[in-house]
Every structure is written in C-alpha cells, then in structure tokens.
C-alpha cells in the first residue's frame, strides 16, 4: 500500500469561497462546506482567510495634513477614524493629503508587511498614534510608492478587509490523481451539489459572434509516430487592448497564490482554475507563419515563460512556427510569443494532449506548471471547444476585440462508453443499503448518464471522469457521496474453532532467536538492508545483480550479503559516542542474488570490547575480560538451541570465512556440509579496513538452514528413565599434541563405553611446566551411571582402561602420570 502521499501524485488545488459560490448556489456555511469536502474525498488541507490578518485595519479619512516641524519629507496628519477624537499620525507617504481616504492601523495592530506590532511612537519629537498603510504593508501587493488611496465614498470606520472584498476564505484541497475534474472550481461545486450542499450553476458562456476565418493555420505533424495531440483549437482575436486585469480577477488569482500579469494571461489562468481547462495565448504579431504541433528535434531549444531555456528531444511535444519553437506543449508557453501590454492581436489556444507524455515531459524537464498538473491527469475533451469560447468571451469582455472563427486540428475524441451496473454491487462491495433511486440520483447528480429501470442499468460516465472504468468505480462514487459514515461496522466471522497456530516455522524460529539473544544481554538493532560496496565485497558480496542503479548514497549501494558489516558499523558509531562495549544483534534478510530464493534470514550479533554476557567493563566483583570467540560461539549455540536445532548432533569445525580471525573462529554444522552457524573474532585486518576498533566477536546463525523437525504423532515426552543408583565420577588427564582439538578427545572418551558413560566434560587445559613443548594436557571428568547394580571396583577399573585406550588411540596422546 502506498499509504504515504507522493508529492507529484497528490498536489493541492486552491480556490476561494466566493469563487465556489459562482458555481454553487448554497446556503451552507464555510464549516459545512469544509467538512463535506473532506468526507467526499476532497480532503481539505487548509482554510485561510486573509481577512483574519487584516482585522485591525479600518478605513479612515485624513482631515488635515500639515508639514512636520522637524522634517521636510514628513507630514503630520489629523485622521478621522470614525470613532472618538481625531488621531495625530506622522506619515512619510508622498500621496498623504487632506481628504484622502485610506487604511488605518492603530497602536497594538500587527502590520504583516513590516512584521511589526505598532505602538505609540514619537517621530522627530512629534507623537504618532498609528499608521496609514501601503498595500505592501498589508501584503496585498508590492505597491509601496504611497499609502492606499480609496475612493472618497469608502465608509470611514468600517473594516477594510470587508470593504475590499478580502473577506473571502481560501480553501486548499489535496487532490488525488484520479480527479482531474476537480482541478477546476466547477468540478468541486458539482461534487458538493451531488452531496446535497446546494445546486450547481451551469454557467453557460454567452455565444460569440465571429468574423472571418482564423488566418493562422494549425498542422499536427507527427509523421509515422503516435500523435501526442488529439485536438488543437485556435482562434485569433483582433484589436484587443491588453493591460492589467480588473481588480476582481486579480484578487482571485492573488488569493490562490498566482501573480497577476496582464489581462490576457490572467484570463488563461482564470479558466485553468475555473474549469480545469488550461488555455494559452500567443501574441499574433510575434508568430510567423502557421503553427506546427510536432515532436521536438534533438537539441532544439525553447526559452520558456519562466525565462529558462529548455533543450528538447523527440519525446517532447512542441508547438513551432517559422521562427522555431514557441511552446512546450501542454506545459509552458514560450517567451518569444508571450503577450504584453503592446499586444493587439491575440491567438487563443485550447488543446488536448497525451496525458502520459505530458507527465513524462514535465518530469524530464523538471517543470511543475498548472497546465501540466491538469493535462497529466486528463482534461475533459468535451470542454476543449467550450473552454475556447469561455476564454474568448472573457477576452471580449475585458479587452475588447473581434474574434475569428476557430480552427480545429485533429478531432475531439469520443470518450463515451457504458458500464452494466447491477445496483446490488453497492451493497456487495460497500455494505451500504441504498435504494435504486438513491443510487441513480447520486450518479445522475455527478453527471453520469443512467439508463434502464431494472436491477441492472447502463451507466455512462461523463467526459470529465476518465478515471471511471467499471462497477467498482461506480460503487465508490455512490459510497463517497452517500457517506462512508452510513456504512455499519460489521464484525468479521470468527469461525467456530479456537484460534489455531498461524505462524510458520521460520517466523517462530525468528521470534525464539530474538528473545533468546535479548535474554543474553544483546540489544536488537535494525540496520539498513543496503551497505557500501567496500563492506559488501569484504563479506563476499558485491554481486552486480545486487547493486542499486540509483542508490541514495555510496554508503547504501549494495544489498547486504551479511548482517555483520551493518552491526559492526553500528557498534563503532556507539563507540564514537563514548559507548565502546556494546552487544548488538539483528535478525534480518541477507541476499545472495536477486531471486526470492537468494534471500535468507539470519540471526547475527556482535559483542565489542568487553561486552560479555555477564556485563561489560570494570566492576568491583571483577572486571570483564575482552570478548573472545567463545562468547560468540555461546551466543550461536544459544540461538540454535532456542530455535530447536538438534544441538547434540552439531559438530564444531575450525573453519570460517575470511572475515573471521583464522585461528579464532569456526562453524557449527550438521553433518560435514550443512552450516548452521558461524562464529569467531573478526579478522583484525578487516576491522582496520572498515575502521572499527576491536576486538569484536561475531556470530551468524542461518535460521532457515535448520532442518524442519519431523512431525510428531503425539505431544507426549515419553516416560522419564532415571536410575536409583549413585553415579560414579572419575578424572583423567592426557598429554596430547598442542594442535589436537578437544572435541576429538571428548568424542573418543564418550564412545568408549556407551552404556555406562553418561557425561564427559573438559575441566582443565594446561600447557607449560611439566608438559613437554608442543604438547598440552587435557583433563576430563567422566560420569558413569550404573543401570542395574552398583559398579564394583573391578568394573570401574575396566571402564577406565577402555576410556584411556580409546582416547590414546584416537588422539595419539598418553595418560598423564
């Protein structure tokens, strides 16, 4: 489950309440609207009312403006705030004059544009009881040449924000990628209307009178490659007057974070957000010849409206004229043909683009634009031409001019299809009990066409819902509009049995290994599955199939062949923080190749410094010695015992891979081949290479390698056989070669008399005075357990003789006199 949101996938859409109400006839409060939006899947991420910050600012009139006695550029104003005594305010604005109606901030008000809370001040010895503000001081614009100059009939004493229409909350919603229709305010209004929060206003565009054909032609030229542009509509509007757009339009764009440019550009942005229909304008005077829509050619460059130059290739769709590239199709227009205040003839474009290609191009060029955001989700094909009409209408209304007929290259694709929809699907998938008329009502209000009257109807999704594929999508529409809250929580059947074992052998083993190691004082770590190449190679890893193509850093480039490097590095990090003696373990996956079978589970651990099981460091009861191979072997054997390995059948081999100390390491095997564990002190050369302070004792237990226990017919442990007779113990010491493995001697002793010998333990190892050079003395304690009757001295002597003979034969040693 991708339950984390991806920035590119879920981006936000902003609009104001008044804008929404252009499309939705509703009495609902802001809170109701916000709550409903979230519940129907248009998650509100924020509501911001700019009027909140402007609360302290009121409209005031300057009654008198006198020169400041001590400063040429300052004036001393007498201001009528609409209540109480007139205020004396020192002001430096050149446009401050008697009769001006402006915006007043009084002491105590926070002025956002200068990040200051006002107090009564003294400016050049004249007291000032407030401030007349500029637009920049209120963060309304960058305007700071003078203070705000309102019409003289502006109501003195009233809230400036309310008067200026700034009391218009901005709502920001997180849009999932399946909802291109809600990249326009109209689509959001439709959802709210369907959910019962008012009535959708259709907002038809008044018809446009055109005059003549468009003189610029459009050609789609994709040769024999797939077309990236299903349709491209274009129209010329002659004789426009371009300049700043009207205040209401600027206000809406500013509110949602867009910078007003000029009327023509603002109109395209407005329609983009109003209907999710991006438009583009070209200054016709700067376009040479006809427009060609085609793939880019390797190395072609285009200077985009963001003043950056982009190099394209044949995966990028472009719009070109005889001068070259003019636009990155569907993503960003070009600077060369941009509209400014000198534009008199404008070409208006409304096109459809290949959504996949737009997403790819946007990502490749690193451009996030409002047009890309919509085209990559899928723009309503049926609004391609109405969108052109809407844009034209606005141009005529705001800039005047005469439109030509439009030219259409390509064709509007037919997106219609129907879904056979049994009403029972709603109940089957959602658990929601709704009547057919209720279901039909919801779908119809969302713009779906529903035909038929039986239990199964035909449903055609509207052109603005490219995400709808089948029945489950329709259930989702019904469910989200009706309300997920209506679905009753329904207990899952629990079956008729007591719960059974659910874990696999591997899972049980890992659990047991984990608790067994923690009981031995090791702390469980979770380290990265990827390590550096150097670490991987030091542990026989580094295979090319396990190398990431795009690692996040060179420390995390290769899938780990062993848990030891990560643990050793972790131990060193602790040492660098002042904790040199640590015992850590991890139970996790290691990788031999990139197949599922190449991934194995390992329980591994390390003890560093003096971190032996009974505790590290100095202590009054005795200081801990440095860790050795035996600490590691003890951990490995404890894990094997805990996970049910046949411990009595394990054999210790003094062989281990290169990362271990060759003389202080070994393997625990079942038979000569099956390695269940490795243990030892890490090789000093390796520690030096990886910059780790030793000593480090490490073990690796291959939990999956332990054979599955045979299924038992019964849980019975069998009868306990214990003897009433006292066991007899005898000690023996043998002089053997120094290189002899103790295991060999013990095995020989154990095998000397299987009936009687219950246990053999090694209790002393000695070399030095009294033992010849190259030899050592091994002392063992043999326990004899009589079965039927007490042993006679003769019987004990006979067994002893057999033990001595067996050991001497197997080891070449001699009984120590």
């Amino acid at each position, binding site marked *: *489950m*991708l339950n*984390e949101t991806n920035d*590119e*996938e879920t981006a936000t859409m902003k609009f104001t309440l008044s804008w929404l109400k252009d499309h939705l006839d509703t009495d609902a409060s802001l809170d109701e609207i916000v709550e409903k939006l979230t*519940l129907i*899947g248009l*998650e509100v991420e924020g509501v911001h009312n700019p009027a909140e910050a402007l609360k302290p600012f009121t409209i005031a009139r300057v009654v008198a403006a006198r020169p400041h006695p001590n400063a040429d550029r300052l004036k001393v104003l007498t201001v009528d705030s609409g209540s109480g005594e007139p205020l004396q305010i020192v002001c430096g604005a050149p446009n401050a004059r008697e009769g001006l109606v402006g915006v007043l901030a009084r002491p105590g008000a926070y002025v956002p544009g200068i990040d200051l809370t006002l107090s009564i001040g003294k400016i050049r010895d004249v007291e000032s009881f407030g401030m007349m503000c500029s637009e920049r001081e209120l963060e309304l614009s960058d305007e700071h040449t003078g203070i705000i100059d309102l019409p003289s009939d502006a109501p003195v004493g009233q809230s400036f924000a309310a008067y200026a229409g700034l009391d218009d909350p901005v709502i920001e919603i997180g849009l999932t*990628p399946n*909802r291109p229709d809600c990249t326009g305010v109209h689509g959001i209004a439709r959802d709210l209307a369907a959910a019962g929060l008012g009535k959708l206003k259709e907002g038809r565009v008044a018809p446009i009178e055109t005059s003549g054909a468009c003189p610029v032609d459009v050609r789609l030229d994709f040769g024999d490659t797939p077309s990236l542009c299903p349709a491209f509509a274009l129209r010329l509007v002659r004789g426009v007057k371009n300049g700043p757009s009207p205040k209401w339009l600027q206000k809406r764009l500013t509110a949602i974070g867009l910078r007003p440019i000029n009327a023509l550009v603002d109109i395209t942005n407005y329609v983009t957000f109003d209907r999710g229909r991006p438009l583009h304008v070209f200054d016709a005077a700067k376009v040479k010849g006809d427009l060609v829509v085609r793939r880019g050619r390797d190395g072609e460059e285009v200077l985009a409206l963001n003043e950056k130059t982009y190099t394209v290739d044949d995966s990028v769709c472009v719009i070109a004229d005889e001068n070259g590239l003019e636009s990155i199709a569907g993503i960003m227009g070009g600077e060369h043909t941009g509209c400014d205040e000198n534009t008199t003839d404008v070409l208006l474009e409304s096109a459809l683009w290949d959504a*996949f290609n737009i997403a790819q191009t946007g*990502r490749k060029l690193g451009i996030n634009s409002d047009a890309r955001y919509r085209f990559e989700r899928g723009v309503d094909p049926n609004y391609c031409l109405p969108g052109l009409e809407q844009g034209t209408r606005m141009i005529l209304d705001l800039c005047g001019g005469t439109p030509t007929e439009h030219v259409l290259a390509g064709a509007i694709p037919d997106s219609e299809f129907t879904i056979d929809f049994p009403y029972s699907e709603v109940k*089957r*998938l*959602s*658990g929601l009990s709704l009547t057919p008329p209720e279901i039909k009502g919801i779908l119809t209000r969302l713009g779906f066409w529903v035909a038929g009257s039986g239990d199964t109807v035909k449903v055609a999704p509207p052109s603005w819902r490219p*995400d709808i594929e089948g029945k*489950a*999508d329709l*259930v*989702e529409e019904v469910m*989200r509009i009706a309300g*997920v*809250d209506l*679905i009753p*929580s*329904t*207990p*899952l059947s*629990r079956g008729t049995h007591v719960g059974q074992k*659910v*874990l*696999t052998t591997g899972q049980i083993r890992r*659990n047991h290994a984990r*608790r067994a190691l*923690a009981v*031995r*004082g*090791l*702390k*469980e770590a*979770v380290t*990265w*599955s*990827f390590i550096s190449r150097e670490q991987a190679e030091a542990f026989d890893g580094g295979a*090319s*199939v396990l190398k990431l*193509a795009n690692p*996040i850093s060179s420390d995390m480039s290769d899938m780990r062949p062993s848990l030891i490097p990560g*643990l050793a590095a972790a131990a060193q*990090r*602790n040492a660098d*923080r002042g*904790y040199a003696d640590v015992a850590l373990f991890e139970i*996790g996956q290691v990788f031999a190749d*990139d*197949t*599922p079978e190449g991934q194995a589970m390992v329980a591994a651990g390390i003890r560093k410094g003096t971190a032996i099981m009974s505790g590290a460091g100095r*202590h009054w*009861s005795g200081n801990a010695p440095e860790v050795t191979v035996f600490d590691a072997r003890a951990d490995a054997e404890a894990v094997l015992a805990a996970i049910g390995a046949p411990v009595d059948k394990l054999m210790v081999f003094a062989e281990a891979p290169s990362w271990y100390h060759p003389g202080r390491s070994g393997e625990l095997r079942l038979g000569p081949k099956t390695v269940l564990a490795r243990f030892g002190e890490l090789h000093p050369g390796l520690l030096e290479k990886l910059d780790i302070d030793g000593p480090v004792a490490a073990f690796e237990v291959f939990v999956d390698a332990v054979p599955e226990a045979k299924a038992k017919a019964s849980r019975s442990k069998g009868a306990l056989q214990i003897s009433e007779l006292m066991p007899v113990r005898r000690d023996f010491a043998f002089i053997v070669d120094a290189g002899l493995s103790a295991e060999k001697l013990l095995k020989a002793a154990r095998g000397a008399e299987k009936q009687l010998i219950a246990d053999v333990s090694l209790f002393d190892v000695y070399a030095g005075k009294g033992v010849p050079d190259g030899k050592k003395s091994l002392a063992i304690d043999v326990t004899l357990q009589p079965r039927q009757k007490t042993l006679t001295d003769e019987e004990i002597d006979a067994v002893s003789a057999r033990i001595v003979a067996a050991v001497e034969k197997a080891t070449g040693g001699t009984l120590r006199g």
Partner: protein
Amino acid sequence: MSELETLESDILAAISAADTEAQLEEVRVAALGKKGSVSEKLKTLGRMSPEERQVMGPAINGLKARITDALGTRKDVLKDAALSARLEADRVDVTMPLRRPPAEEGRIHPVSQVIDELTAIFADMGFAIAEGPDIETDHFNFTALNFPVGHPAREMHDTFFFDPKENGERMLLRTHTSPVQIRTMTSQQPPIRVIIPGRTYRCDSDQTHTPMFHQVEGLVIDKESHIGHLKWILEEFCKAFFEVDNVKMRFRPSFFPFTEPSMEVDVGCDRSGDEIRIGEGNDWLEILGCGMVHPNVIRNCGLDPDEYQGFAWGMGIDRIAMLKYGMPDLRAFFDADVRWLDHYGFRPLDMPTLFGGLSR
C-alpha cells in the same frame, strides 16, 4: 575448706578463665584426663575403706559431674562467641551495586515488538502472517497491482532499481508490502486472511523519511467481505493496538491504484500536549490507507472479481510504533544507538499477548 572444695573452685575458676576452646580442652585434660586432678582423686577411692568410700565416693563423683557440666556450658559459650566473631568478620557491604542481569540489559527493537503486537491481535481474528522477498519484479510491485504505465512511483526518482537484465527486465526494491498480496492470492485459494509485515524501500531521505521503512498490510479475500467488515477490523485493531477503550475514526474516500473504492483513515487524537494521544481530543491524524481490492488486481491473480471480493489496508509499522510509544524521530530506528534502544526497546520477556496485555 576441704581439699576437694579447693580443687573444685580452682578448676571452675580455670574453666571460667578459658577464652578459647583449646584452653578449655587443656583445663578438661588437666582435670578429667587420664592423669587429671579429678581422675587422680577417683583413683584414690579404690584404696579407701568402705566407710571412707561411702563418704568420698559421692563427693568425688559429684565433683566430676559438676566439672563436666561446667566444661559443657563453657564450651557452648565459647563456640557461640567464636561463631559470632567469625560472622562479624564475614560482614560485607550489601549495598554495593550488582551488574545488571543480561535479561535486563537485552532489548527487543520496537519494530519487532510492534510486529509481535500486530501478530497477537490479528492471529486472534484468524489472520496468518505472509511474507515475501524485498527484491521484487516490476510485475509484482506495480503491474499486477494495477499501477498504470508512467505512474510516478515507477520512476527512479521514487523507487530503487537494479540494473536492467539482458532481457530488459529490471528488478527493484519493493516500495510497499503489496506485492505479497499478489504472491498470496496466486499461491493459495480463498478464503484468505493475512497480514504482511516487512521492510519496504523508497528513494527518500529527510527529517521524516528514511530510504528503508516498515509496512504492514492486511488482506482479506472471500465471497462476502465488504467495507463494513473492513471498518470493523480497523476499529477493533486501533482499540486493541493503542490499548484504549474507544478510538474515533474517520474514513475518507481516497485513491490508490490497487483498491476501488479506496479510503484513507484518520484517528481521533489530541495534539495539545508534547505528544500526540490517540483516541481522545478533537484533532485527526491520518494513519492508514485501505479499500476494496481492485477488480483488476483480483483478475490479475486469476480470480473472478464477480465471485471473489475483499479488502486490503496498509500502514507504516514505524509510524504506529512512534505514535504509540512517543518516539519522535524515525531516523533513530535505524541508528542502533544503545541509549535509544535501552530507552525505547522492550525487555526480552515482555511478550505481547492478548491475555496478558500487549504492553505493560
């Protein structure tokens, strides 16, 4: 004073004066030994006349008995004193600190503990634990899960890839545990109830993201399970996991490629203190995504979506661990700082169970 009386008082004085068992033994030998003073007196009895013996016999034997008693009494006193002295000499400072026992020193990582908690809860509802490989194919991680070609998650920007093979196939590190849904549905027959905990990977590294993290996913496939059941499971899970009596939950319609309908789930919480408290308060916190398994996904697993249905949900294990146990920083999960492990880790014998409580 008679001779006997003098002897008795001398011996009794010597007994009292003996400070050690050895000195006392000397006194005993001097009095009662073969040639002891009392023994010598006893020997004189044989030479006496019967009349004398009648008088002296009881007197000397009485003396012997009294001396013997006095020796015994004195011996007990000396023995007690010697023991007391030895015990006093054996005295140690019992306040000296001991080493921490290994079982107290060891720790279970919060991720493991939380997986055990999840296992306890879901095993009770009849769920098994499914697992799958970390290195996945594009098919299992994306295609079979109904990710469209060109989905941003399929880019190198988001997903760790390995180099392409000769046949063009490109292995990747799974970005979610959902491929195991596919592996489960294609390897066993419904009814299916599994949870899928595991490591997942995305190219992300900042304050709140790590390139490796843990997810748990749930999957139910049968012929009847719907969103009502999903709501019940998640409500029961949240109460059990966060160990609170009530959890306010909000299901918001959302979008994922592999579920339809899809929802995101918020839990009620209180953010007014230093830590987020789940279950109370007026704030919401998004904790998981869920939905009915998309018909295309069911179909991709060889099942008929008109016959089989079910749901899936997924959430971050690290994240719910952080919420429950008040751990502020995700990155610390993978740093193995022993101070962090000591503080946030769990004792080895604290095994989460429903009968004994998930945590203490």
